[in-house]
């Protein structure tokens, strides 16, 4: 069935149509939620919240708009809401502090490419991402992982594009600092 028909039927209260919409988009929603949260528990909470919000506001969705863009907007705001609910002192999904883990990385090991492709550095960066402030984190996830343009992110979050650029810069700066802490430079391990 065409998506527009599903939306019309779901907005009219058809639970089967709504379920079909959820099944169609749940992987995308879960992916973003996981990239933001870094763990299944929070990713599932966020994804649930997204679909509840979709259910509540589907009748206000404009048919001429892209459902995916609209969903992205809801996902981004749900991620920030979720983080806000957890509070600024919420624990990170990783038990060990990322910076400490970077410092603890043994010296004289493989170079950055080996680390990167071995997955170790990816894991460390992922835990660093999980510690970014919510604004920086969602901007980085949507730009880096989802490939959204900064202007699209700005519009979805209701922020000035300059603010979003600065959030991205701050996020990247922190990730680069993590590389430095791990003694990883682009030219190899220091």
């Amino acid at each position, binding site marked *: 069935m065409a998506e527009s028909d599903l939306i019309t039927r779901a907005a009219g209260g058809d639970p089967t149509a709504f379920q079909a919409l959820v099944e169609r988009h749940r*992987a995308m929603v879960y992916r973003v939620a996981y990239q933001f949260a870094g763990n299944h528990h929070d990713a599932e909470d966020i994804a649930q919240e997204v679909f509840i919000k979709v259910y509540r506001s589907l009748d206000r969705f404009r048919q001429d708009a892209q459902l995916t863009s609209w969903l992205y907007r809801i996902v981004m705001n749900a991620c920030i809401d979720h983080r*806000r609910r957890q509070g600024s002192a919420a624990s990170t999904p990783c038990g060990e502090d990322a910076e400490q883990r970077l410092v603890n990385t043994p010296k004289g090991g493989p170079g950055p490419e080996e680390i990167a492709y071995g997955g170790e550095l990816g894991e460390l*960066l992922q835990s660093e991402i999980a510690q970014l402030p919510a604004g920086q984190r969602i901007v980085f996830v949507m730009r880096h992982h989802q490939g959204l343009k900064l202007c699209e992110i700005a519009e979805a979050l209701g*922020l000035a594009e300059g603010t979003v650029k600065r959030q991205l810069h701050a996020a990247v700066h922190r990730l680069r600092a993590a590389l430095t802490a791990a003694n990883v430079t682009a030219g190899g391990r220091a």
Partner: protein
Amino acid sequence: MIACAVQQSGRVELYFYGELEQEAAAELRSHMSDCGECRRALEELTVIRAALATRPDICEPADGDWTGFMERLDDRLQRERTARAAPVREFRGALPILSPARRLVVPLSMAALLALATTSVFYVARSRPMEAPREPLTADVAPGGLGPSTWSAETGFASLSEQHFERSKLVVLGLINKDPHGASPADWEYERQLASALLSDTRLYRQAAEARGLTRLARVMSDLELVLLQASLSRTPEPETLEQIQRLIQKRDLVTKMNVVARAGP
């Protein structure tokens, strides 16, 4: 420590993510041929991309089974439907998931308000002579055929919404009257904290209004929520951010709407 102003400006990231115009990208490439700092930043971004690309693509629950997720979602949707069908009776059930303490804030406030109203009515009634003509007290009138208990809950909710609007209006007026180019960081931080403090309650009121079918109130709360969200997310006093918030307030005619809803009720 970053020494290069170009690197500090964030243009390297914009270049890396394809966000620079052609001319600006060419300028940056030219700059990078002489600037080791920017070159290193670009190379490190490449390392970050390669490293993150090794992370597994997680797009489903841990066990790969959506059944539990869908069941939980169905349960919540069922509660939503019930709340829509009986908005007043299911008011508490329709609230978002909050900590137990936060969940009690609205009902306790309503209870306190109702107790105050009841006491006031009692004293007013006692102070009047028995023979005096009975003028209908506002709280005695149940509009739309609602029963007394329903009307009390609705009145309490309306009153709380009005109080919330009064508090929020101070922040909205503060934002709209601020000079975008003259706001000090401390001043901005104060406004931002006020906006953050009001945001959760605004969302709560908006959701409660939606659950109760109070469309007009829900819409104004939604506009207010958007303004507060923008203000609370902006950590530095950037003129363009403040100007955008001010445009949003004006475009939505938020102050007028808040006044109208507060005066006329939800």
